[in-house]
């Protein structure tokens, strides 16, 4: 009954009673597939959330990976999905996030309803792992965003949207069962990405600019309105930091740095640690700039 009510009336649909808010020194991990991965290039999602957090110091790590699933399929390199799953566990253990925002389902939805149970079972294992590895105080499940039908000869995506709805509902149910927050991005966008995607699925600069505030609201936070040049200054710094983190977290030449040819180039893996100090100083700059921007805004 309560769920029905909040689905009907609100954009957000958090299963937990109290409102979500960021806490000082929160570390937020974004986890998911292409939607999450590409968000780091445009920075809107992180910028909007950072602004919504106000003066609170929050840092973000994007662990999105194109084509990924709740099983870790895309991060498995040479091994089975299990290895990708374990790699993710290792990444999470290292980052120690306090908040994890998870957005899966867009890939699975292509397989239709018949794969839904398998997806939810896998999602359950993923959540067990996240909670075990991080002890995060908040794990927030996001519904995947809607797809868009572009003019022919691009494919009709109405069917996919139907399937996405089914997966959205299943994720919401999972969140409710586990007492986790659920942010209904699909609902917040009224089940439509019209005019927002580049290929029917994925957003570019303009798409994320529209989607990001909707996601913030779907989480029950208040989007901060800013002049675009102020937002963009902050966003650019965030994008630069994201690039550095990507180069560190998902480096090229992994085969040689840490996998089965590390006897040839493993000596260079230590370079990856050099990113730590660079990222820390960039984050200090981001915080400082955010403070200034917020002051001006107020």
């Amino acid at each position, binding site marked *: 009954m309560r769920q029905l009510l909040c689905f009907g009336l609100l954009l957000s649909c958090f299963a937990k009673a109290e409102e979500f808010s960021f806490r000082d020194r929160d570390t937020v991990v974004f986890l998911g*597939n*292409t939607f999450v*991965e*590409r968000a780091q*290039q445009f920075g809107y999602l992180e910028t909007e959330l950072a602004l919504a957090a106000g003066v609170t110091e929050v840092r973000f790590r994007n662990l999105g*990976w*194109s*084509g*990924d699933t709740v099983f870790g*399929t*895309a991060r*498995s*390199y*040479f091994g089975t999905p299990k290895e990708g799953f374990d790699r993710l566990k290792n990444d999470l253990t290292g980052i120690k996030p306090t908040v994890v925002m998870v957005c899966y389902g*867009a*890939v699975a939805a*292509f397989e239709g309803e018949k794969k839904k149970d398998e997806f939810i079972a896998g999602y359950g294992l993923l959540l067990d792992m996240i909670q075990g590895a991080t002890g995060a105080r908040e794990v927030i499940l996001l519904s995947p965003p809607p*797809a868009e039908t572009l003019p022919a*000869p*691009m*494919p009709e*995506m109405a069917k*996919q949207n139907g399937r996405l709805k089914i997966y959205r509902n299943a994720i919401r149910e999972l969140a409710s069962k586990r007492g986790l927050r659920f942010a209904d991005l699909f609902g917040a966008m009224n089940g439509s990405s019209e005019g927002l995607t*580049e*290929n*029917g*699925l*994925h957003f*570019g600069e303009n798409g994320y600019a529209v989607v990001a505030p909707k996601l913030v609201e779907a989480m029950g936070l208040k989007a901060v309105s800013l002049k675009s040049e102020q937002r963009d200054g902050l966003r650019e710094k965030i994008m630069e930091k994201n*690039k*550095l983190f990507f*180069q*560190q977290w*998902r*480096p*090229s*030449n*992994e*085969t*040689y740095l840490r*996998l*089965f*040819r*590390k*006897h*040839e*180039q493993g*000596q*260079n893996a230590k*370079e*990856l640690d*050099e*990113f730590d100090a*660079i990222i820390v100083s960039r984050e200090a700059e981001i915080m400082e700039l955010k403070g200034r921007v917020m002051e001006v805004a107020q």
Partner: protein
Amino acid sequence: MKTTFFFLISAIALQAQNGLRDIPDPDPGKQEAAFNLPEGMEINLFASDPMISKPVQMNWDSEGRLWLVSSGMYPHIVPGAEENDQLLVLEDTNGDGVADKRTVFADDLHIPTAVLPMDGGVYVANSTEILFLKDTDGDLVADERRVVLSGFGTEDTHHLVHTFSQGPDGMLYFLQSIYIHSHLETPHGVRRLMGGGVWHFRPETQQAEVLSKGLVNPWGFVFDDYGQSFATDGAGGDGINFIFPRAVGVTSPGAKRVIRGLNPGQPKLCGLEILSGSHVPESLRGVMVAPDFRGHRINSYELSPKGSSYQSTQLEGFLSSAHRAFRPIDVKMGPDGAVYIADWYNPIIQHGEVDFRDKRRDHQRGRIWRVTFKDRPLVKKVKIVGAETDALLELLTSPERFQRDFAKQELRQRGKEVLPALRAWTAKQVNESALVEAMWTFQSLNVTPVKLVEKLARSSDPRFRAAALRVVYHRHHEIPKVDQMIEKAVGDENAQVRLWAVSCLAQRPSKTSVPFALRVLDQPMDETLDFALWSIVREHEREWVPLFEAGELTFKGKLKHLLFAIAALEKPLKLNGVFAGLEDGSLKGEERAGAISTIAKVGSAQDLTRLFALPGLGVVGLDALIEAKRVRKLQPDGHREKIVDFLKVQDEGVFHRAALLAGLWKVKPAFGNLKSVFFDESQNQGVRGKAAEGLRYFGGPEVIALFERAIKESSASGTRMLAVKELANLDPARAAVAAVDLLQVDDVSLNKADLLGVFLRSPKASSILAKALDGMTLPRKIAILGVQRAGTTGKPPLDLMKAFEKAGDLKPMAQQLSAGEMQAMVARVQREGDPRKGERIYRKAELQCMVCHAIGVSGGVVGPNLVSIGGSAPLDYLVTSLLNPNDKIKEGYHTTLVTTRDGNSHTGGLVSEGDQEITLRDSAGGFVKIAKADVKSKIVSPVSMMPPGLTASLREDEFVDLVRFLSELGKDGEFQVGSRPFVRNWKVLQPHARTRDLMGHLGPKIFAERFADYQWTPMGSMVGGALPADEMPKVLGRGKNRYGVARFGLDGDGEGPVILKINETQLMHLFDGEKEIPLPKKGAASIEVPAGGDGERFTVSVNSVYRTAPVLIERVEKK
């Protein structure tokens, strides 16, 4: 005085010059002067640093501008550095053949590996993504950036998604390589590709699909004038590869079967282009050119249709350079008809093998060279952008491929508004070359010209029929009569058309897809067609198998079809039809053998019972039953005791297999037979060995006691060897002491490597042997063998290796040289190394180089082909590879370590991975099959299959010569495998008592006799093509006479007569079969022989005592 190498290494003087700084002069003038060009060819510098740097790929646009991605960041970004790799546009505005204008289109890229101007912008491969960049305000600088596809792996930056080209169909084609794992989300669903492969992508629909899989590092891709596609492999050695849908090349993960390229034994090639157009001399038109980047050379190949695929022949080199930093990596025909070559320019090219931060890596330079032909007019530039549509249509029949391709691209750019004009133009064309261009233009516009496709599918030229089917492959949904078209093509008289028919069927799974495809079996088959058919049978399993099982698909009267399908599928199926053919005797020869092995592969226990009951089962059937037991753990469910009858047959081959089966099936009544054969010392060792192995499979205390008794009581070391080996399998602790005793015996007839193998199967067994060795001594060569064998297992047992070193008094080997020692070694190789002596050392049997490595077409396939190793590997790399092989392992040659549930481990290169078994190639080149059911784990091991310490028995000067020889391989000169067709693969006769006894009576003709007990072992020619007489095994004759005897066949399948050109006929006899061919007493000779025959058709013998000349035979087609 012979001193071991590891002793001397520390004694090398350190003041020698540092060979690692031997970097060539980067002056472009010097580089230009270093080119070696054939008569009539000219070369000039089109662009050079600092105008450009580090070119990776280049492509032209329709205005004749050259787009180039370049990466100074390669191979790995420095922490905190800007992503600043560039996309450049070069223009030759005054037409003098030199670029005079450069624009930086983008400068924020991260190791961009491909570029293609198209669709009003440019596609760029940018590590994990494919981007589309666009200039919207006309300043030739990108101001729009869109991610088109993401999720490409970056596990290795020289395998990244790369090599863009636009197909004649208007699609974007691109490649990825062995270590890359890609996960793309498209609006049509997720597409994943593990390892190498070829993708195609249609921008209008955003559909991305995998065309073919595999190849190690494919980095050249091209379409010919008929729309067939080809690739070269930058880390594979098969020259040109024919790319057809669903082809699977080497190293594709999980591949059960792969298809090889057209030129095995070629150097690695990067880039590919087909020479065409009026500026190119006629003799070169249609020739494929591909850069041998390691050999500083451009190779050329001529293809001709052969069955469903091609025959590719290497021609004399296109051009080469003596400049060691010339690294041609891309080659493209230009708008002026000249050939453009992108030169990565680097003294070293190694990726993983040389430190990412190695100072010798060049990050600034790069050149584009332009090849023209003297006294031949260049092609005049034509207007394409802004040209009238009718003018563009006329260009579709231009003799210049550049103009045809870009007219088509421009028409695509203009969109559907050109369709009326295109239709009108097409209606006027009669020439099929024009019609095919028209078909592709429609396709480029994402339109299917159904009538035109149907028309070309009826062409009298099979190449056009195949081209039409390629359109059907992609657009079958839009062709109403598609089923009839494909059905007709399945029965086409041309094999390549049939191949495309099968490919089209593969796109359309249905109840009839497999039965239709199998009809190709009614006409001659070849490997390519067989592969495609095998592939569809497996892929469409869910379509045809239920029908077959339900009895709706009977293959009545088409047993051949059924057999193929079952064998390809390798899953249990109803086999009544097959049994009927076996039982009524209608299956004969190869078909019968195929039916038997098929049943053993897929049949149930009941089927195996029925199979075992067949009269005249023979060796084939017994082998099949052994495999069924080993791989599938299945055996006949009754009447197994009949195996005893086979043990009584007077045929060693039958006995060998029956003995194993008796043990594997634990047939009690056979135990006594096996036991008596094992103890009968008058029987030969082979038979007794199989009896012992059979006994071992029974297991238990009785068998252990039996082997212990044999060890204790027998005085024959052969008997003890068999018993120890089998006992060690059952209980290594009980066998270890006796094993050490045997290892101490200096008798070459005892196979000690096999014995060691048993103890190397598990850490427990190797530790037991290590303990037993404590305090004992071993002959030095046995101890070295022990270290080598132990060192190449997936997890080397260090305790055992130490024990061998101690027992053999081996000094610990210097596997790592200090920087100073390495400098000194490199300097010495350059100063003193003699490559000719080095080649003889390379060929020494005890070094075993040739067992594992090929140089060109001769040698083993366990390790990488060394044909061009000298062109790429720096000396320090070669030295380290020899001293510590684990330090340097080439991609595609990693060792797989499979641990089975019984705790044993198996090490080797992964050959294939099927549903039921994993096949490894061990370090001796043999195949090991392991049942999937037995596998506990399978990992890629960091241990090389190249044994450590191979060089321990060399003197330092020998080592220096060996390194020098390797360093010359593939460079211009004596140690480059040329294109002349010398006989390079031989089988040489091992000494046999018969020749000594009967030589006087029968003369050399005795060597040509097809005598079954002769032992022939493979041997390769030297790099120059000759087989040295003194390296052949010395076959005894009368008195002091010794003979070298070799057999060879005629490669290739020409039909006309062949000329054998012999260097020197002195003291030589030559036989065709058993018939002697008269030769002159001495001097060179040319002999004409008919084509055909097998690999042992000819026998050549030389007196190796009195003749010094090597044997050099060239096989020339008679014109």
